[in-house]
């Protein structure tokens, strides 16, 4: 079991920081299989994209991503100091096929076993967990 942490700020950072962080993490965690890596990378990049796009707006936001690799699964927590989220992740559904946005959270919900959002004080916290079967 190991824990990994990434701190980033947008701007200037973007989701590239998350991709590069995960590449480093997977390099040290050979026990995590390709399917779990793909699923969790999608989930975390979608969440980080949402935060950068919606929580930030024009303002600079500071984010932290904590990722824990345990025997039974992958767990991550993404926090930011931006605006509160206006969506309920538990009801996120795929939009019409012709839509050009709005699929992010629905996809996250499909590749994780648990997805939660909380606003505490001035902080947004997104938590995801994926069980390793």
């Amino acid at each position, binding site marked *: 079991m190991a824990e990994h942490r990434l701190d980033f700020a947008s701007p200037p950072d*973007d*989701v*590239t920081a998350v*991709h590069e962080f995960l590449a480093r993490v997977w390099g040290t965690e050979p026990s995590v299989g*390709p399917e779990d890596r*793909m*699923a969790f*990378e*999608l989930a975390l*990049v*979608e969440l980080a*994209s949402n935060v*950068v*796009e919606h929580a930030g707006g024009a303002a600079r936001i500071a984010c932290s991503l904590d990722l824990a690799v345990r025997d039974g699964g992958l767990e991550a927590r993404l926090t930011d100091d931006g605006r509160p989220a206006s969506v309920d992740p538990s009801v996120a559904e*795929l939009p019409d*096929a*012709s*839509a*050009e*946005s*709005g*699929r*992010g959270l*629905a*996809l996250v919900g*499909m*590749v994780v076993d648990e997805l939660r959002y909380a606003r505490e004080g001035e902080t947004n916290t997104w938590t995801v967990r994926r069980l390793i079967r």
Partner: protein
Amino acid sequence: MDIVVHETGTDTAVLECTGRLNMVSAPAFRETVATVVDGGHHRVVIELSGVEFMDSSGLGALVGCLKTARQAGGDLRIAAPSEQVTMVLTLSNIDKILRTYPDGDAAVANWA
């Protein structure tokens, strides 16, 4: 993301993409496809074998580019998606509206 445009016919083009199709690269990707379609190549194949990651921003860009091509009287097809891209296409049901071909040549050859 890198995009190499191969103009394979008077109205067909294959865009060979490499890297990640996400919120960072999606705007430039949309712009490149719009330029290709504006230039008369309205039958567009997006060759994805070198794209190791795509997310909902990438999906949105593909759907937008499909509309751009169809509005110009053409179409958009995707070729050789990686395992990750296939996963995202399937989860989102976009595989129902975007035809996938094994490679760029197959996508172009079958265009009657």
